[in-house]
């Protein structure tokens, strides 16, 4: 079977520029929505996965699910610290951090609206356990003082969080002595201070969580077993990465569900647009179709030509939509994660996977919009066509 040359197909799109632009424009908008939703979920995943270290384990109270809900007593913490399987540093200190996490209301920089910032009481070891945290300004807090360091997303988004300034909360003035970059992880949206100071100020007697480095990932099984056998330790142990992935699960699911349903609904509009355009293309070229058929092109070739034209439309729309979406990569947003009730900052992230899915989505719209008109064109009888022309 001889195919109708591609140049014929593409030239048709060019001849009817206005129509092509309008139809592809509608598709581009749908594609834009589709792509940004995927980019958003990718961005949240990226943030959450980057937050956990592969060989760090995390302990929370049984069933707590989040650090805010969790509670670990001093006795429990000491019992855990004595377990084998926890890595030590060069000086023989256990690489383990007892932490306390508190949600604290602070005003945003631009609007003055209050939002929850996670305040984490940690230690120098706690900071060492998260190598992605790098100070970009100032220095580390000194243990035993009311000094705090803030993630770059907090520093950017919240009022008065700048080097040397003080914040008043929990009945104290806290001095910002450092700003850190946590490589787009969840820690970027946190404020860190000395764990004992935070517990005193917020009047808490119990820890929220414990984080430690495993001697090896296999050591986790032994620790899990030891904790399970001790009735005093009603605790859950997880790999840190797994814990943070779970924190964002609900949110990404919600965004994905909402975004995908919207994309599908919107795509009906774009598909209808493509159909209208393609029906008109067929109607205005009936004579041409007859001529092509008379020249010996089979009806399948006509079908492919019109389907190709519709795919061309959706390709243009898809590329423009994806192009516009790629501009969103420079946008950072911050919103509340309902699983933890705290602010989390993330960006729109374009990956090859997202780009591929987006283009497939766009081409599927093209096929759905173009198939019926193309089918009709293929089914026209030669005689009828030539008579009409």
């Amino acid at each position: 079977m001889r195919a109708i040359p591609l140049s014929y197909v593409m030239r048709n799109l060019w001849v009817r520029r206005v129509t092509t632009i309008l139809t592809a424009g509608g598709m581009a908008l749908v594609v834009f929505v589709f792509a940004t939703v995927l980019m958003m979920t990718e961005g949240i995943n990226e943030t959450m996965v980057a937050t956990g270290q592969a060989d760090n384990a995390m302990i929370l109270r049984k069933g707590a699910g989040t650090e805010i809900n969790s509670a670990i007593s001093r006795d429990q913490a000491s019992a855990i610290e004595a377990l084998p399987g926890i890595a030590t540093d060069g000086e023989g200190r256990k690489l383990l951090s007892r932490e306390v996490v508190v949600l604290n209301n602070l005003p945003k920089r631009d609007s003055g609206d209050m939002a929850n910032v996670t305040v984490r009481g940690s230690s120098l070891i706690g900071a060492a356990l998260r190598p992605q945290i790098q100070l970009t300004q100032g220095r580390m807090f000194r243990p035993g003082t009311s000094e705090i360091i803030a993630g770059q997303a907090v520093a950017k988004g919240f009022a008065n969080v700048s080097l040397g300034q003080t914040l008043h909360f929990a009945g104290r003035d806290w001095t910002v002595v450092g700003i850190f970059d946590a490589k787009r992880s969840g820690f970027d949206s946190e404020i860190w201070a000395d764990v004992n100071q935070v517990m005193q100020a917020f009047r808490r007697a119990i820890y929220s969580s414990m984080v430690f480095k495993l001697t090896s990932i296999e050591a986790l099984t032994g620790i899990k077993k030891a904790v399970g056998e001790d009735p005093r330790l009603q605790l859950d142990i997880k790999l840190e990465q797994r814990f943070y992935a779970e924190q964002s699960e609900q949110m990404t699911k919600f965004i994905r569900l909402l975004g995908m349903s919207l994309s599908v609904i919107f795509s009906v509009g774009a598909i209808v647009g493509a159909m209208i355009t393609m029906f008109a293309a067929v109607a205005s070229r009936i004579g041409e179709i007859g001529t092509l058929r008379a020249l010996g092109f089979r009806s399948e070739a006509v079908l492919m030509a019109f389907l190709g034209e519709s795919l061309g439309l959706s390709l243009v729309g898809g590329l423009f939509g994806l192009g516009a979406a790629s501009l969103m990569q420079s946008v950072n947003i911050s919103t509340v994660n309902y699983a933890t009730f705290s602010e989390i900052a993330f960006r729109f992230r374009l990956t090859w996977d997202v780009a591929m899915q987006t283009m497939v989505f766009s081409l599927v719209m093209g096929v759905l919009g173009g198939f019926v008109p193309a089918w009709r064109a293929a089914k026209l009888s030669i005689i009828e066509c030539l008579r009409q022309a």
Partner: protein
Amino acid sequence: MFLFKLLLKNAFRHKLRTLLTMVGLVVAISAFGLLRTIVDAWYAGVDATSSTRLITRSAISVGYPLPLYYAERIKKIEGVSGVTWVNWFGGIYIDRRNFFARFAVDANSYFPMYPEYIVNDEEKTAFMADRQGAIVGRKLAQRFGWKVGDTIPLSGTIYPGNWNFTIRGIYTSNDARTDETLMLMHFGLLSENVRKRLGTTAANQVGLFMVGIKDPARASAVSQEIDALFHNSVAETLTETEKSFQLGIVSMSQAVLMAIRAVSFVVILIIMAVMANTMTMTARERLAEYATLKALGFSPAFVVKLLFGESLMIAAIGGMAGIALTFPLAMGFVQQTGSLFKVFEVSNQTMLYQALASLFVGLIAAAWPAWKMSRIDIVQGLRHIA
């Protein structure tokens, strides 16, 4: 009348094309309406607030514990008519997805403070008599098919362990805006549990105080007085009206709401492109006709009127169908999402915006072809035929 008939004839000359355009319009306008309704639903809690209630919470963040004895001290303030307190229970009912609000309340002071939650006396007595009892909202009971007497198992997140509550009553409301999706249990039960584990100080901790006031006009004065009372104390407070408290909660998800709003305009843009395309094609095909009309002495304004009229007619029919479709769509959406949204109604304002959007789409779509057609050269237009 003649013009109207001509418009109608013109609009349906290409039945398939007009129909497809209208399908697109219906989808776009109803989606636009649904999205606006979703955003409205988010704010529904704000509308249902009472001006005679204040919320006192920890200055640290919402839900951070405050000592129970604050209740007595707040009560003594001039203008306060009553105080009650709640704790957020958290917990999971079978699966995390089955989310609904669960509060531990002090029933004696809670129900007088919330007269909009109607429970009959018999059920209230049964609830008071059962330490493991619970009262649930009508919509919540509907969602899971619960009846009075059913046992509801919850696994604790904030209060560890497995809990079983027996439904002793179902509350209703006469106001459509009232939240009928709460589950309420006894504060005493939880505090007893905490006392056993962590001692008396930890047991007498409260998440939020609700403060009834006699005169709404004095809301801010009373709020300031409450906060001044605990200033520089162990646990500082932040008191605001119920309305601004709810607004604060809603504004936490502002980024999501903004995104939904933005997207609702995108769908209008999409349909604008589709509609503009339809009108452009229509105009191009009728080039010769318009030239003939002009040759017969009709003014360019008449041609413009024809195009705008046709575009507006299609937009109006599609728009109206879209508005009508929003209602069943919203109903289906509520059924799908369970009681995620407490109140879900298509407002008059939404319908107005939908109508305006259709009008706007109709006007913009015809603008370019109308301008072009009013300027066509008669001779060239007629030549188009041949």
